[in-house]
């Protein structure tokens, strides 16, 4: 039972060749590059969405922070499309892999912190001590703030992984329960099916929201450090 549930999260290998690279690269096919002056509807809609999202995301930053806008917009596009494609039955969601999320979270967070240290050393070090603390609390508070800073990338990665994995697992479990209940009592199976439908709607929302949250937090760390 245990083995059965978790096998969908193993990195997919087909005939001995790991195809995870192809699966990660697949969502980029869904965003065609604009080649003409007036594009088709698909590209126009994507262009409008990108502009809308990037304005909303980058309006709080100064010109130095706005150099990150291309990276953040492509990040949110990548995470949203990967999460939504994972909702298809029997598909593999790369964002359930902790490796991928750490690979996204740690370099981005480290980039914002290093940028803050290089450009505004005093201001970024001042973040370790909130204003108005009593003098005898200072050593302890510096330790606490350092730990809370160092835990930011881990929290980013684990948040995304855990949310998507938990949602997929829950859907598997409730689906198996509905199937098993169908032979016992049809009414209970129907109730469980309603729960499954509601959960699917929730999962769609979670897919979108998680992408949003990830990018928003990176943007927040950037704002602190520019």
């Amino acid at each position, binding site marked *: 039972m245990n083995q059965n549930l*978790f*096998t969908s*999260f*193993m*990195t997919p290998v087909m005939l001995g060749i*790991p195809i*995870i*690279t192809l699966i*990660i*690269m697949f969502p*980029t096919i869904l*965003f*065609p*590059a*604009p080649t003409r002056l007036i594009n088709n509807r698909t590209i126009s809609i*994507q*262009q409008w969405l*990108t*502009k809308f999202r990037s304005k909303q995301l980058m309006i709080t930053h100064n010109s130095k922070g706005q150099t990150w806008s*291309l*990276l953040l*917009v*492509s*990040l949110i*596009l*990548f995470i949203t499309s990967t999460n939504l494609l994972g909702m298809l039955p029997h598909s593999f969601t*790369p964002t*359930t*892999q*902790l*490796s*991928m999320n*750490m*690979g*996204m979270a740690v370099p981005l967070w480290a980039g914002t912190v290093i940028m803050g240290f290089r450009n505004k050393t005093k201001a970024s070090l001042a973040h370790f001590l909130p204003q108005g603390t009593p003098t005898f609390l200072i050593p302890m508070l510096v330790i606490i703030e350092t730990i809370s800073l160092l835990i930011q990338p881990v929290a980013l990665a684990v948040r995304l*992984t855990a949310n998507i*994995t938990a949602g997929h697992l829950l859907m598997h479990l409730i689906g198996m329960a509905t199937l098993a209940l169908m032979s016992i009592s049809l009414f209970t199976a129907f109730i469980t099916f309603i729960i499954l439908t509601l959960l699917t709607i929730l999962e769609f929302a979670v897919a979108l929201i998680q992408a949003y949250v990830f990018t928003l937090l990176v943007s927040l760390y950037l704002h602190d450090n520019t």
Partner: protein
Amino acid sequence: MPQLDTSTWFLTILSVMLTLFTLLQPKISMHLYTPNPKPMPTKTQKQHSPWNTAWTKIYLPLL
């Protein structure tokens, strides 16, 4: 948990870096956002031509 099996981590991280940086970003950067057209001012500015202010030898061709 199969996510903690670190043998595949290198390949996954490498392919994510590759996708995010070399595939997606050029595609997004090709979106052109032209600014709204602004009306040009019809009165052109007065040109300051430096050759009118100083009297030079060419005005007196006999010398």
